[in-house]
């Protein structure tokens, strides 16, 4: 077995995905497991490797790794389960160390271990840990540029609302966008962190407004980034500008399926595509990537693979609020080098590029 260059630590987004993964492992000769049956089993499964992963760069180099699932039950991501979930992520991190991974990327909720609980990481290990959030931000930026180009709009004239702005991804997006947009509206639950970010960004020439009440900003925004760690039920399509374009970067998604402003569009942000080759053994790619395009992976996990391809086993993204435009550019250059690009814009129902392009005609 090849040495383990990287470990991707994640959790399954929904019970149906989890049931599909376990059913695939059961094999075609056994009846598929149902979601309700799995609810009795999955919470007991300790974090472990689910499959082996090989990524090939567009320049031909390869890196080998593992996907480790923390088996956090998809419906137990709420704050009241925080302690239990942190313990699971910590065990998954220990598992990555045990696998001998040189770098581990903590995807989705797992990144919390590096954003605010860094002391909980396994000590004295040779594994470098990264949240992968810098590449996620880079992909979000490319996604926004791409969407606006399709819609025939100018980023410089956009009023951008960031929900979850005080988080690592949200604040990274804010720093990248502040010098480039017409107005920046920051919303988050933590008023102190929000104020600190607004103060930091006040040096840019762009007006920055911040607040914890989503309703005060909803109608002003024509570009929205949903980067909250929890779903955003307070956001209603009616409250938004009718032609708003929304980028949902949450994992699990912040917005319910079918959410869309009357004349706007929603797309999933932070997804990258491997132009080289991506192989999983056993082959669960069709389940773990529900998008109708091949080799689509969340930016956070891609960052771990990318750094492994470049033999840079370093904690590229750690802590909260350290993502700068310079670091975003650095990881994006690295992504270009290895053939990792923005995935086609899509939502839960499939591609949305045509829908966004239609907005150009509607608005004019």
């Amino acid at each position, binding site marked *: 077995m090849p040495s383990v260059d990287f470990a991707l630590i994640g959790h399954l987004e929904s019970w149906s995905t989890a049931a599909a993964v*376990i059913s695939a*492992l*059961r*094999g075609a000769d*056994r009846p598929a*497991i149902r979601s309700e*049956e799995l609810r*009795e*089993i999955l*919470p*007991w*499964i*300790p974090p*472990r*490797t*689910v*499959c*082996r992963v090989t990524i090939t760069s567009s320049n031909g180099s390869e890196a080998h790794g*593992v996907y*480790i699932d923390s088996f956090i039950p998809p419906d137990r991501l709420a704050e009241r389960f925080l302690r239990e979930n942190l313990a699971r992520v910590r065990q998954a991190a220990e*598992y990555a160390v045990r696998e001998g991974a040189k770098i581990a990327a903590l995807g989705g909720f797992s990144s919390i271990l590096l954003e605010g609980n860094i002391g909980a990481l396994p000590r004295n290990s040779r594994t470098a840990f990264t949240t992968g959030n810098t590449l996620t931000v880079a992909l979000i930026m490319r996604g926004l540029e791409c969407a606006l180009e399709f819609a025939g709009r100018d980023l410089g004239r956009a009023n951008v609302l960031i929900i979850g702005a005080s988080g690592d991804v949200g604040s990274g997006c804010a720093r990248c966008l502040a010098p480039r947009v017409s107005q920046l509206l920051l919303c988050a639950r933590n008023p102190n962190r929000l104020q600190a970010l607004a103060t930091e960004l006040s040096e840019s020439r762009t007006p920055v407004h911040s607040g914890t009440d989503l309703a005060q900003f909803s109608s002003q925004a024509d570009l929205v980034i949903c980067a909250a760690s929890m779903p955003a039920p307070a956001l209603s399509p009616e409250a938004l500008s009718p032609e708003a374009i929304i980028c949902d970067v949450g994992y699990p998604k912040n917005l319910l399926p079918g959410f869309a402003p009357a004349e706007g569009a929603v797309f999933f942000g932070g997804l990258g595509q491997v132009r080289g080759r991506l192989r999983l053994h*056993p082959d669960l790619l069709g389940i773990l990537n529900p998008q109708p395009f091949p080799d689509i992976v969340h930016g956070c996990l891609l960052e771990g693979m990318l750094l492994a391809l470049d033999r840079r086993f370093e904690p590229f993204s750690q802590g909260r609020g350290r993502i700068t435009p310079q670091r975003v550019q650095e990881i994006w250059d690295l992504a270009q080098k290895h053939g990792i690009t923005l995935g086609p814009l899509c939502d839960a129902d499939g591609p949305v590029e045509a829908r966004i392009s239609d907005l150009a005609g509607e608005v004019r």
Partner: protein
Amino acid sequence: MKNTNLRQLAAHGCSTNEQLHVWRDILAQAVTGELVGALNYETLAELCDDATEKAEALDHATSERSHAARFNTAGREMGLNVGSNLDASYWKRIREAFLSRARANDFVGCVIAQEVMLESFAVASYQLVAAKAPGKLGSTFAEIAREEGEHIGHAVEMLQAERAGDLKSFDAKVLGVHEEVMTTLAEMVAREDPAGHCGLCEGNCVKPSLPCVGLSTGELRGASLRRYLQTLDEIGLPGESTLAWIARLPI
């Protein structure tokens, strides 16, 4: 068993006769499991060339018999007549699986079956039962769970060394034992018994009544599989293999 009045029930930490019946049937499973364990260790002793190992296996057998006796005593103190049945379908299959390994002189296979699979199952399920069982019964389950845990620790070290010698054939051997023993244990705690009554419960199957004492087959299965996976992790088996193994078990 005659119906017991409320005062007698309360003295045993129960509020209904159904609860008392459930504890009796749980105890019958535990006693039978311990007796099967004792027989397995006695068989294991016959396979040992080394005198110290032989003595250790016999010591474990004695300890399993003492566990069975302690469960019986705990039941008696609650006014329960706890039965046992070595021919009960699941336990008989487990014993036969063990004996087939022993007949093949497969010492390692026998250790895997008894000290990894059966003991993991026992430790996890006893811990769960201990948390719900009243008074002395609860503490008996807790103490025995602790003692059984020591048996697992004993096996892990030996099996790690065994695996280091030949990873591929060791893992294949574990899978072979898993398919027999763990499949049977999974059926034992599955929601339904396709083959009918297991031959241990005094009346109807106890499984649908477990919630009346705060237990469920789902929890028992989950906790047992978790302990089993953790033991396999300690031995060093790859997580993706063991995940696929448990995914294939009956539900």
